[in-house]
């Protein structure tokens, strides 16, 4: 898969735009079952990432991902900063400069494990892992961009009837049921933006 400079810059812009354009939606999801800052936090983090372009895209893919992760850790705030930031940093650490699809699958596995460790959580607790884990299963099984994007959207929807066990929503107990998890929604949006760019530009 070709990840030249142009593709890298488009990828960063697509990720950032997906968070900036959906900030209000993410915030209203978070107002229902969290502390109402998820959209604002993710927007702030990705605006900070955008501000590091175009130099950011000069870096090779692994270095670029690590830099994105560090910016998110420092700028997002809330629990999402370390969780999403860790995903990008670990992905960068595990990825070679010219990755094959198999390399990307292996690196994503490691990044998801790091998110689990950071949040001391597993899938099934109404967190972003409820999107990352099932999407990774489709990706690892050879699913194409459309299948990955569809699973990301459906997996976020599937968090709606779930009971929150980790994070602020867990304070609500059964009242967390019936609302989509904001972190799952932002993860699905980021995945959708990433695969749309990579499919078009790099032949995922």
């Amino acid at each position, binding site marked *: 898969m070709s990840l030249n400079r142009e593709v890298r810059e488009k990828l960063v812009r697509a990720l950032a735009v997906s968070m900036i354009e959906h900030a209000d939606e993410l915030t209203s999801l978070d107002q229902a079952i969290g502390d109402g800052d998820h959209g*604002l936090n993710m927007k*702030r983090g990705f605006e900070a990432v955008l501000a590091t372009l175009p130099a950011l895209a000069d870096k090779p893919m692994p270095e670029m991902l690590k830099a994105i992760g560090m910016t998110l850790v*420092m*700028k997002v*705030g*809330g629990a*999402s900063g*370390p969780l999403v930031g860790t995903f990008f940093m670990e992905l960068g650490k595990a990825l070679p400069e010219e990755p094959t699809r198999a390399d990307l699958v292996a690196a994503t596995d490691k990044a998801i494990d790091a998110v689990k460790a950071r949040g001391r959580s597993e899938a099934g607790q109404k967190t972003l892992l409820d999107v990352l884990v099932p999407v990774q299963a489709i990706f690892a099984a050879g699913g194409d961009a459309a299948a990955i994007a569809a699973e990301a959207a459906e997996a976020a929807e599937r968090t709606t009837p779930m009971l929150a066990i980790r994070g602020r929503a867990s304070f609500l107990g059964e009242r967390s049921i019936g609302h989509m998890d904001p972190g799952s929604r932002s993860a699905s949006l980021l995945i959708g933006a990433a695969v749309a760019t990579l499919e078009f530009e790099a032949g995922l």
Partner: protein
Amino acid sequence: MSNSSSGNVGIVIVSHSAKIAEGAADMVRQMVGNAVPLAWTGGDPEGGLGTNVAGILEAIEIAWSPAGVAILVDLGGAETNSEMAVEMLTEDRRARVVVCNAPVVEGAVIAATESSGGSSLTAVQRSAEEFYA
């Protein structure tokens, strides 16, 4: 923020609210005076409610002691951001910083009181965590 220096274990207070963090620090100071290195941080990177890694790293630096630093946190994001900050420390410092599983106000006061008597980091953490034991 706050100040002081000694060989005692340092205390860092991390709350989503700067006012809570500062108020808890005031209560600690009333108990132990300047016998314990102390720092607080609260708020997201723009000053709203939340926590941020850069602020926590700065607070650890201010409260640094060779005996180590105990961090007291309020809600989940404060804990996650604190753990992230600890991982970003140099290796020799990382082993001497703990995030306590304790209520932020009571934990900070009891941890500081324990520290002011010259207790080890392990003893300070244990005292704070007795609230949830």
